[in-house]
């Protein structure tokens, strides 16, 4: 079989991406970029004006001193940085796609590994192109529309913010739109299927971002919550299945899907419990429908309850039926950082580690309850269902903890407690006054103390304090200036190593690519199969899990680790 399709699509995509990079670098599309990023452009104009004024003063001074006029280096604004970043990425990806695109047109494809690998590139390029359009075009466009609609008084709220219409959600929606309306082109199908690998790579790279203490605390928390909710859900489904006389195979496949990690668990458990085709279709349809719905509902509720990254990550990681949407919801909640994703993915990994155990349990249960059931090989189930990519995550965590990617004390928060924060980044008296003014608004004694400490030290001194004040920064009735001060205090305390910063950027892109690719595998036809007893049982268990885990997280999970 030949996987590489002789199509000019990859070359065209490559050239278009290169063109975007070139136009950005030449400044030809600055007007368009200014409209897309009004905030950054405003900053750009301010930086430019300040530089021009400084240049003028320096020139006048030099003239007065009879010296030649100096040329001051113009500082880079956020706008310049964003354009440079877009150009860099466009040249990298566009160049690669163009070269491989030419190769595809000239190369007489022969079956083999090279053919398979080359055959995946057009699909990956399609995903990357969608990701660029969404991140650089639709994301800022929707943000602007949301603000404009609110400012015009058409709505009293920002619809883009409320519905979290950021690049992650829009990317997944774009993927769903492509597969359902436009259909995935034949030349892209092979690469689209490979998007799973991008997500797994994202999880593996995520291993570089945890400190040992963080991983230990999150790991322990996730094991407790997942154990309660996975085992609880499996138990509820087994009970409901029996009461509703759903049959052993249907009950078995449903309990895996609803209990552990959704579609992936259904795929893993179906052959073991000998599920009928219709049972598989109803179950997967139900899980996909719930998953897509949760991805929109969870982040909105999370913001409504002003949850911290730890709380939201724990809730999404426990309460969302389908594991693919856990990452989506975490990034939708917190698209600018990976803090929530870090927490949610630990919960996802714990769920995956539960998968072989649950499959084994169901296999034993099925054999016990069904006369014609085939006995399962325990060792084979445990080995074949073990998620190997988790080993990659652990390996990167170990390498990272050994200081391979960043100084060993990077994770211990040396910038919190040491004297590394520069004087100009410490709080100014005016800012301190503003913070004192909002002291009465703090909701808990912990928040009160965190704010008082910030006021007295003029900087953040611990990770806990940072997390608490991050939650404070999300309070709806807080003054914008105060929010800005808290944000700057956070930035002053966090000095990531360039390697870790690069990892963080790549992780966000990998997840964005992966989620768009997964969106391209969610078809309306599959979702439409939701029905029958699985829909009833799934709705009950899905709601119980979401509401139950929300209550547990709000009542018992502290705002930080």
């Amino acid at each position, binding site marked *: 079989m030949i996987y590489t399709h002789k199509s000019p699509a990859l070359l065209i995509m490559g050239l278009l991406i290169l063109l975007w990079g070139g136009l950005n670098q030449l400044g030809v599309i600055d007007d368009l970029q200014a409209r897309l990023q009004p905030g950054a452009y405003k900053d750009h104009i301010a930086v430019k004006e300040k530089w021009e004024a400084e240049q003028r003063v320096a020139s006048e001074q030099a003239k007065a001193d009879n010296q030649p006029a100096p040329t001051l280096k113009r500082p880079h604004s956020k706008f310049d940085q964003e354009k440079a970043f877009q150009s860099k990425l466009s040249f990298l990806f566009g160049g690669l796609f163009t070269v491989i695109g030419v190769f595809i047109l000239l190369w007489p494809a022969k079956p083999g590994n090279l053919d398979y690998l080359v055959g995946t590139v057009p699909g990956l390029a399609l995903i990357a192109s969608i990701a660029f359009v969404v991140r650089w075009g639709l994301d800022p466009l929707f943000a602007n529309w949301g603000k404009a609609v609110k400012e015009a008084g058409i709505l009293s709220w920002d619809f883009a913010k409320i519905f979290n219409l950021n690049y992650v959600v829009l990317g997944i929606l774009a993927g769903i739109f492509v597969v359902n309306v436009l259909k995935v082109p034949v030349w892209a199908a092979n690469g689209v299927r490979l998007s799973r690998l991008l997500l797994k790579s994202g999880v593996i790279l995520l291993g570089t971002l945890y400190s040992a203490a963080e991983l230990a605390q999150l790991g322990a928390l996730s094991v407790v919550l997942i154990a309660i909710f996975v085992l609880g859900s499996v138990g509820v489904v087994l009970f409901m299945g029996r009461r509703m006389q759903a049959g052993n195979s249907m009950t078995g496949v449903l309990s895996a899907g609803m209990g552990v990690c959704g579609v992936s668990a259904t795929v893993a458990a179906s052959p073991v419990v000998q599920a009928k085709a219709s049972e598989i*279709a109803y179950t*997967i349809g139900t899980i996909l429908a719930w998953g897509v719905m949760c991805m929109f509902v969870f982040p909105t509720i999370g913001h409504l309850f002003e949850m911290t990254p730890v709380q939201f990550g724990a809730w999404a990681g426990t309460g969302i039926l389908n594991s693919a949407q856990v990452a989506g919801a975490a990034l939708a909640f917190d698209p600018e950082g990976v803090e929530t994703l870090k927490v949610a993915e630990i919960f996802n990994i714990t769920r*995956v580690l539960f998968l072989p155990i649950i499959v084994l349990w169901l296999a034993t249960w099925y054999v016990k309850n069904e006369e014609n059931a085939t006995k399962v090989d325990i060792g084979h189930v445990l080995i074949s269902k073990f998620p190997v990519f988790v080993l990659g995550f652990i390996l990167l965590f170990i390498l990272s903890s050994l200081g391979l990617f960043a100084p060993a004390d990077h994770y211990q928060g040396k910038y919190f407690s040491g004297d590394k924060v520069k004087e100009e980044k410490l709080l100014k008296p005016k800012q301190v006054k503003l913070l004192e003014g909002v002291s009465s608004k703090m909701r808990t004694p912990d928040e009160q103390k965190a704010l008082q400490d910030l006021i007295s030290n003029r900087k953040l001194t611990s990770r806990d304090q940072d997390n608490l004040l991050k939650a404070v920064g999300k309070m709806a009735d807080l003054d914008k200036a105060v929010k800005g001060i808290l944000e700057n205090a956070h930035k002053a305390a966090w000095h990531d190593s360039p390697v870790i910063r690069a990892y963080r950027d790549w992780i966000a892109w990998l997840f964005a690519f992966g989620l768009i690719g997964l969106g391209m595998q969610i078809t309306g036809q599959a979702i439409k199969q939701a029905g029958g007893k699985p829909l009833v049982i799934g709705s009950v268990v899905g709601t119980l899990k979401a509401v139950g885990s929300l209550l547990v997280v709000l009542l018992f999970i502290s705002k930080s680790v």
Partner: protein
Amino acid sequence: MVESSGPGAASLLLAHHGTPGACAAEPLAWAMARAWQCDIVHLWVLPSFWRDMMGDDWLNSAATRATFATYLEQTLSREIEQQQQALQQRCLAQGLRYRFLLQIGEPTACLLHTLHSETPRALVIGSRRPKGVAGYRSHLEMSQLLRQARVPILLAPWGWVESSVVQ
């Protein structure tokens, strides 16, 4: 013993997926086939949504996905084979010649394609199941079928029984 028919013989196309609606259409097909002295051509369309049944699974290894795909393929082929053999027996018992066709894709497109390639004298189908009855959501686009079919279409109502056939 009545043998299976071959291509070229006058035929009546029966779209049948073992659903109660399709079963209700069987007696109508038999009555028409006897009256017109046609063979029964049984069309089974395996809807393309089965290709999407791994949804957005990303956690499993290639081996687990392959096991699932093989299992699903075997389960579907077993279900189709059971239904096909049962219908074949019933047709043969009616003294009718029978031929089986399997297509994978969108039901309406596959049906129209078969009508074009087989040129049967008529198409017999069952009606859509009433709301609340469990089943796959993969329906024929009736308006498209009515617009594009070039043969008479016989539609058996839901729950229709043989005694109603005008001999």
